[in-house]
Each structure stands twice: as structure tokens, then as C-alpha cells.
């Protein structure tokens, strides 16, 4: 595992770095980990949470009464922007039923990217709903798979019934520059959203 330790060795008494996170959501196989890997300075890492406690919303395990456990994996990457500013990218678990894990991931996130595949747009509905309901700034990035038909961003916006201010862009999750553009777009969008929220409400 490459942690690039030598470059990251810090001076004593330096202030603790600020950490931020962006979520990368979307259906199974849409390229979430690919996008994280395209910009991360480390090979995407995997962290796991085991679901064992009674009362967790794992209704599909009903009847086996805790004998079976489920492991939910989250892939994530890191970008050290400066010695004191680190951005983490977290791919959300593909399975929609792990909503409570999404809550943990979304807590304190500056924004989210919903990756979409035009051949299976419906796979991104759950993530879009989730971020809309919680007021988390998000954008939609259409991952242009080889061989999939290209549609203009506006067509995708209409198909997903998105609010006009939600950015939609086409991307190639494998390309670093493309992934970078997506991340810049989501941070810019988060800035607009937070500026608007700070404005006093009109009488």
C-alpha cells in the first residue's frame, strides 16, 4: 500500500490538516471506483463495515436471525491538495438497502457526484432522490462508456427530471482530467449552493 509517507511527513506543531469529502454515487458497475482511482493519489482503498447488530435495517435477512452477516464495502481515495488540506472521495455502496451507511458517508460531505450510464439511467434515481431530499449539493456526471450511444447533457437532465441548477456533464471516468473536471464542477456547485443559503430570505 502506497501512502507516500516521505512527502507527507509533517513538521511538528503544524496545524492539523483540514479534511473534506466528496461522495461518488450511482448504480452498480457505473464506474464509481474507476473515477475515484483516476484522480486518487493512492490506489483506491476498501473499508468494510459488518452488519451484525439487531435492529439494523437489513430486512432481507429476516428469518435468519443474525446467523448471516453482510459486509458492505466502501471504496475510497485521497487527494492531498496541500499539506494541510486533504480531499477524500468515497464511493457509496452499490446496494440501495444500506441507507444508514449512506447517512454516515453523507455526514459532512461537501457534495456528491451521481455517476450515470445512459443505458441504465434508472439506476441513478435512488441516489438523486437521496441527495435531493437531504439538500446535499450534487451533480450528475454521465460516464460515456465505449459503445454506448451519446446523448446531450440537456437530454439527460430532462430524462432525470433534474432541477435547472443541478449541473450535468459528460465524462470519461477513466481519464484523470475528466474526473478532475467533474470534481471541480461539484465543488463549484457546492459553493453556489452555500452562497445561496447564506443569503437572507426574501421578505
Amino acid at each position, binding site marked *: 500500500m502506497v501512502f507516500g509517507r516521505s512527502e507527507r511527513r509533517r513538521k511538528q506543531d503544524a496545524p492539523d490538516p483540514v479534511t473534506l469529502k466528496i461522495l461518488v454515487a450511482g448504480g452498480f458497475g457505473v464506474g464509481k471506483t474507476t473515477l475515484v482511482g483516476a484522480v486518487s493519489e493512492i490506489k483506491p482503498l476498501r*473499508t*468494510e463495515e*459488518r452488519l451484525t447488530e439487531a435492529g439494523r435495517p437489513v430486512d432481507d435477512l429476516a428469518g435468519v436471525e443474525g446467523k448471516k*452477516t453482510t459486509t458492505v464495502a466502501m471504496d475510497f481515495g485521497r487527494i492531498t491538495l496541500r499539506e494541510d488540506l486533504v480531499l*477524500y472521495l468515497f464511493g457509496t455502496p452499490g446496494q440501495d438497502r444500506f441507507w444508514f451507511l449512506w447517512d454516515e458517508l453523507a455526514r459532512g460531505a461537501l457534495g456528491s457526484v451521481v455517476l450515470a450510464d445512459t443505458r441504465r439511467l434508472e439506476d441513478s434515481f435512488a441516489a438523486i432522490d437521496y441527495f435531493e431530499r437531504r439538500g446535499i449539493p450534487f451533480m450528475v456526471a454521465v460516464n460515456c462508456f465505449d459503445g454506448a450511444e451519446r446523448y446531450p447533457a440537456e437530454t439527460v437532465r430532462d430524462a432525470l427530471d433534474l432541477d435547472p441548477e443541478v449541473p450535468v456533464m459528460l465524462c470519461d471516468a477513466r481519464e*484523470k482530467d475528466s474526473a478532475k473536471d467533474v470534481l471541480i464542477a461539484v465543488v463549484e456547485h457546492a459553493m453556489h*449552493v*452555500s452562497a445561496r443559503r447564506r443569503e437572507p430570505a426574501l421578505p
Partner: protein
Amino acid sequence: MTTDGPTGPGQGHARWYDDEAGPVVRPYAMTRGRTSTEAEPRLDLIALVIAEDRHGEPLDDQTLSPEHVDIVGLCRDAPLSVAELAAELDLPLGVVRVLIGDLLDAELVHVSRPVPPAELPDEQILREVIDGLRAL
């Protein structure tokens, strides 16, 4: 998984748990069965764990497990997030949080304060993030 103690496989009918229980029980043996820590609210996935500077003095605390020592070692040169520690040690997040809680109690590490969850980070920081991303 390294804990292959007296209740490990090969104990035949002496086993009191079924096969499915194995992977669940073992990591929590490191936490002596504890599944949560008081420090939990501070241990966000991206909270950074930073080893306290002990001037290279070795850790000889007998109450520490090898996993505790590993965590301190990993955070010594550079701070690592809770998520990175879990990935690096290949342990579930819940287990790592309990272990970090012990190290906080022992004042061997401290944890960075993440941006308060209810607010978006301020505009200046977001601008710095954009500049940083452009420069990649």
C-alpha cells in the same frame, strides 16, 4: 484475520458458535467484545488520527494489543483518517473505532476536528479545493 485462538477452527464439537459466527466474533475479540466507544461521534470516516509526539519513546504499555501499536505506528509519520486505518489494518470500521477510542483515553493519539456536519465548509476552503484540483 490473525486471531486463531482456542476457539478457532478444528475444535470440533467443542465449538459453541456456528460457522457464520466466525468472521463476526474474531475481530471483536480485539476489542474485548466492545462494539462502540464514547469517542464515536468524533471518529468520522475522515477524522484524522495523529500520534502524540513521545520523542521516539517505545510503546511498552502492556494493556495495548498489537493492533493498538500498529495504529500508533501508522499515524506517527503522517496523520491517517479513520477510513485509511481500517483499510490498512483490514479491520471493520467498528473495531478500529473502538481501538482508536482506547488510544485517545491513553492519550497516545489525538483526532482532528472535522468540519461540523451541519454546515458546508466555508467559501474560502472551497476555493482552495478548486485551486488545488486545477493544479493536479
